[in-house]
C-alpha cells in the first residue's frame, strides 16, 4: 500500500516517535516503512548512496532487520521506494508552482520551484537530483521518468497559449534534468542558498526564446547523420594487440593497464558498475588478479581511469576539430561532430563514463562533472565572437554543459550510442543559442547541415 509522504528527510521522523495512543498493527507497519524511507533519504542525501548500508538504515530508523525485509527486498528496493515517493512530493510542489504562473513562464516556474526545493530540503534534494543517478538501472529509470513527468507539466502549459507566444525552444524534460544535475553537484559540495541562481538560469532559458509555432528543438527528434569527420581516428580505441615482439617491463605494464581499463569499461557496460567485479574484469582482460591490484586499489579507481582515458581521447579529438575551422559557430559544429562521433565509435567507454560513473561514488561523479565542464572551454570564444549587450552569465556555461550531458545521457540510455551523431544539431543549438539568439543559431545550423549534405555527396562521388 502507498501512503502519502510528507517531508522524507527526517523532519517528521522525530515527530513519529512520541505518539501517546498505541497504534494499530497496520498503522505501525506504515510508520516503520515511513521511518525506513526517511532514514534512507537522510543517509543517502547526506553522504551519498554508495556509503549507505541496510545496517545503517536500520540503526537510523530504529527498526529491526526483519521488519525491514518485510517491506523491502533489499537496499535498492528501499532506495527505489524512497525515490518514487519523493518524486511525487516534488511533482506536487512543481504542479502548484507551474500553475501559479503564466503558461509561457512554465519552464521558469519549474526551475524556480526546483531551486526552492533544494533550498528548503537539501538532503531530499540531493537524494533526488544526485543520488538517484547512483542507484542502479531501476533507479535510473525512475529518475528519468520523474524528470519526464515534470517536463510534461511544462509542455502541457504551452498547449493553452497563442502560437505566437515566445517560449524557450528546448526540450522541457532535458532542461529539468540539466538543472537537477547542476543543483545535484552543488548540493554534493555542500553549497546552500541556490535561490541566487534563479535570475541567471532564467536568463539562460529565456535566451532560447522562440515563437511557440516555430519551436524546433523541443523534442529530441534526430537530425541526419553527419559526414565522417576527417580528424576522427579511423578505428575505435582498443586494447593493445598482443604481440609476439618482446616488450620492456614498463611497456608491458602500460599495456596491461590499458587492457584492464578497457576491460573495466566493458564489464561495467554489460553488468552495471555495482555488479561488476574485479574477477570479471581480470578475466576479460586475460590477466591475473595480481596485475589489477598492482595498478589499481579497487574498481572505483579503475573506473576513474576509464573516465580519464575517455576524456583525453574525446578532448584531444574535439580540440583538433575545433581549431580546424574558421568562425566560432563553425568551430562548435565541427567540435560537436567529432565529439559525438567519438561517443558513437566508443559506446563502451561512453556508457561506462557517462552513465555508470554515478554509481561509483563521489570522486567518480566529481570526475565526470569536472571533465564535462572542461568542454566549456570551447564556448569561451563565444563571448568574443559577437559581443552583445546581454552576454550569457558564467552560470550559462555550466548549464549548457549540464544540458548537453543530459541530452547525451538520455540518448545513450534510450537507444545505446547508435544515433548520438544525429544529435549534433541539438547539441550545437544548445551551445550557440545563448550567445547568438535562437534565430541566428538556427540559420547557422541550417547552413552547416547544407554543408554536410554537400560534403557527403562529394565523398560519395
Amino acid at each position: 500500500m502507498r501512503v502519502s509522504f510528507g517531508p522524507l528527510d527526517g523532519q517528521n521522523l522525530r515527530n513519529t516517535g512520541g505518539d501517546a495512543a498505541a497504534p494499530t498493527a497496520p498503522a505501525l507497519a506504515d510508520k516503520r516503512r515511513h521511518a525506513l524511507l526517511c532514514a534512507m533519504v537522510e543517509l543517502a542525501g547526506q553522504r551519498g548512496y554508495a556509503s549507505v548500508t541496510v545496517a545503517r538504515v536500520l540503526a537510523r530508523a530504529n527498526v529491526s532487520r526483519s521488519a525491514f525485509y518485510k517491506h523491502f527486498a533489499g537496499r535498492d528496493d528501499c532506495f527505489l521506494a524512497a525515490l518514487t515517493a519523493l518524486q511525487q512530493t516534488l511533482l506536487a510542489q512543481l504542479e502548484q508552482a507551474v500553475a501559479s504562473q503564466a503558461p509561457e513562464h512554465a519552464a521558469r516556474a519549474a526551475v524556480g520551484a526546483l531551486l526552492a526545493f533544494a533550498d528548503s530540503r537539501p538532503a531530499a534534494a540531493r537524494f533526488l537530483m544526485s543520488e538517484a543517478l547512483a542507484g542502479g538501472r531501476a533507479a535510473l529509470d525512475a529518475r528519468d521518468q520523474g524528470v519526464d513527468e515534470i517536463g510534461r507539466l511544462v509542455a502541457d502549459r504551452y498547449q493553452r497559449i497563442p502560437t505566437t507566444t515566445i517560449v524557450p525552444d528546448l526540450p522541457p524534460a532535458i532542461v529539468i534534468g540539466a538543472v537537477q544535475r547542476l543543483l545535484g553537484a552543488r548540493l554534493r559540495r555542500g553549497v546552500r542558498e541556490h535561490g541566487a541562481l534563479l535570475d541567471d538560469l532564467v536568463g539562460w532559458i529565456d535566451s532560447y526564446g522562440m515563437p511557440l509555432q516555430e519551436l524546433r528543438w523541443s523534442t529530441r527528434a534526430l537530425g541526419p547523420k553527419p559526414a565522417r569527420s576527417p580528424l576522427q581516428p579511423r578505428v575505435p580505441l582498443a586494447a593493445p594487440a598482443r604481440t609476439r615482439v618482446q616488450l620492456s617491463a614498463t611497456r608491458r605494464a602500460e599495456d596491461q593497464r590499458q587492457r584492464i581499463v578497457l576491460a573495466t569499461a566493458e564489464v561495467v557496460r554489460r553488468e552495471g558498475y555495482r555488479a561488476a567485479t574485479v574477477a570479471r574484469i581480470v578475466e576479460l582482460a586475460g590477466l591475473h588478479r595480481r596485475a589489477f591490484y598492482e595498478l589499481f586499489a579497487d574498481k572505483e579507481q579503475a573506473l576513474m581511469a576509464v573516465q580519464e582515458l575517455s576524456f583525453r581521447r574525446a578532448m584531444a579529438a574535439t580540440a583538433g576539430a575545433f581549431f580546424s575551422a574558421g568562425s566560432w559557430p563553425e568551430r562548435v559544429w565541427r567540435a560537436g561532430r567529432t565529439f559525438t562521433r567519438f561517443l558513437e565509435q566508443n559506446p563502451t567507454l561512453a556508457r561506462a563514463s557517462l552513465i555508470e560513473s554515478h554509481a561509483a561514488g563521489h570522486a567518480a561523479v566529481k570526475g565526470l562533472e569536472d571533465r564535462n565542464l572542461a568542454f566549456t572551454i570551447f564556448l569561451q570564444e563565444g563571448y568574443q565572437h559577437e559581443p552583445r549587450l546581454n552576454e550569457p552569465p558564467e552560470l550559462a556555461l555550466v548549464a549548457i554543459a549540464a544540458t548537453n550531458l543530459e541530452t547525451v545521457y538520455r540518448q545513450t540510455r534510450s537507444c545505446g550510442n547508435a544515433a548520438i551523431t544525429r544529435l549534433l544539431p541539438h547539441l550545437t543549438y544548445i551551445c550557440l543559442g545563448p550567445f547568438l539568439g535562437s534565430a541566428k543559431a538556427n540559420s547557422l545550423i541550417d547552413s552547416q547541415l547544407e554543408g554536410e549534405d554537400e560534403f557527403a555527396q562529394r565523398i560519395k562521388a
Partner: protein
Amino acid sequence: MAPRPTTKQSINAALQERREGTQRERLLAGMILAANRYGYAGATVSAVIGEAGVSSVTFYEIFDDKDDCFLAAAALAHERLLASVAAAVEAHSPERAAAASIEALLAFAAEEPALARFSMNEILAGRSRALDARDAGIDELAQTVERAFERVPSLGVIPELPVGVMLGAVCRLLAARLRRGERGLRAMSGDLLGWSKSYARPAGKHRWRAFTPASSPARSPHLPATALRPPPALGPGRPRIPADEVAENQRQRILFATAKVVAQRGFNATTIGEIAKLAGLDARVFSRLFADPQEAFAAIHQLGFQELVASCAGAYSAGSIWPERVWEALRAVTQSVQGDPTLARVAFVEAHAAGAGAIQRVEDTRTAFTIFLYEGYRHAQQHAGPPRLALEAIVTAVFEVIYRQVRAAPAPEIDRLLPHLTHLCLTPFIGPDESERFIEEKLRRR
C-alpha cells in the same frame, strides 16, 4: 616549386633594386630573396646564384656552402636590425627603452620587409647553427635594452618581463605577418606597447625579469597515466587483425618514428628511408600512407597538439577561479612538454623547417591556446583588460620561453618556470601586484 605570390615580390622589390654591389653583397641579397621566396629548403645554391646573377664558381670562392651563405645573410640582417634598435633605444630615456625597441622592430619590418622577413621568419627554418644565430641575435638586442634599464632608478617604472622573451615574441608575431605579406605593421605599435606596459612596475620590485627556476612543482594529476607512444610492431607473419587496424598501427609507428628522427637530426636532414627504418617498416608502406615527410610531420604535430590541449583543458577546468585555472593549465603544459623532449622539439623547434603548411599550423596552434585567456577579461572586470593582440603576444611569449628551454641542451627546466609563465599570462589582466600575490600564495601552499 610553388608559384611566386605577388605580395612576396613586392616585399622583395626594394631589395632587388639594390642588387648592384660587390659579389658578396649580391650573393647575400640573392640568399635573402631566395629564402624569402622558397624557404630555407628551397634556397639552394643554384637558386641563390640565379637570384644574384653570379656564377657558382664565385659562390664557392666566397662561401663554403649554402649554410655558410645563409648564416652570413643572417648576420647582415641582424647587424642592420641591431643598429636600428640601438639607435632607437639611445634616442629615448632609459625608462622607454623597451617601448623604443618594440617600435624599432616594427619600423624595421615596415621599412625593410625582406630583411625583416629573413631574420625573423626564414631563419627559424635553418639548421641548428641558424637557430643559434637567431637566439644570439635576440639576446644582443635585449642587452641593448637591459643596458639602458641599468640606468633606471629603482623607483622608475619599466615592464617586468624578460626583454629577450618580449623581443623574441614580437619578432615571431611580425614573422607571421611578414610571411602573409601584411602591410601597415606599425599599426600594431599601440597594442604591443599596451601589452608590454601592462607588466610595468618600479624596477626595484622586479622579480620576473630574469629566469630563476623555482623548485619543480608536484606532478599535475591531469597528465595522462601513460605517455604517448607508438604501438608495438605486429611481429612476423600475416597479421591476425583487420586491415584497418594494421594500417592504423603502421601509421602510428611512422608518426612516432618521424618525431624521433626529426628531433634527433632536424627536419632538414630527415629522410623517408630513415623514418621507415626506425619504424621497422618498408619505405613503400610510408609512401602508401603519406605523400612526403611533411605530411607525416603534420600528422605527428597535430597529434602532439591535441594531446597538449587535452591536458591543458582538463587541468584548466579543475581550477576554481581563473588565475588558479591558468596555473593548473600551465603546470600540466610545462610538465607534459618537459616529460616528452621528442614531441617538444617537434612542436617548438622543428616545425618551422617543415614547410609553409607546418609554419601555418604552428601559428594556428598558438592562436588556439589563447582561448584559455579569454576568461581573464571577465575575471578582471574592473580593468578594461589588455588589447586583443596581447593574447596572441602572451601565448607567443610563453612559446618563446619554452622554445628557448627546449633548445637549452642538455637540461631544460620548463616545469620549473611555472611561476614565470603564470606571471606572463596573468599580469596583463590583473596587474603585477595581484599576480605576484597569487603566485606567492601558490608557492607557499606548496
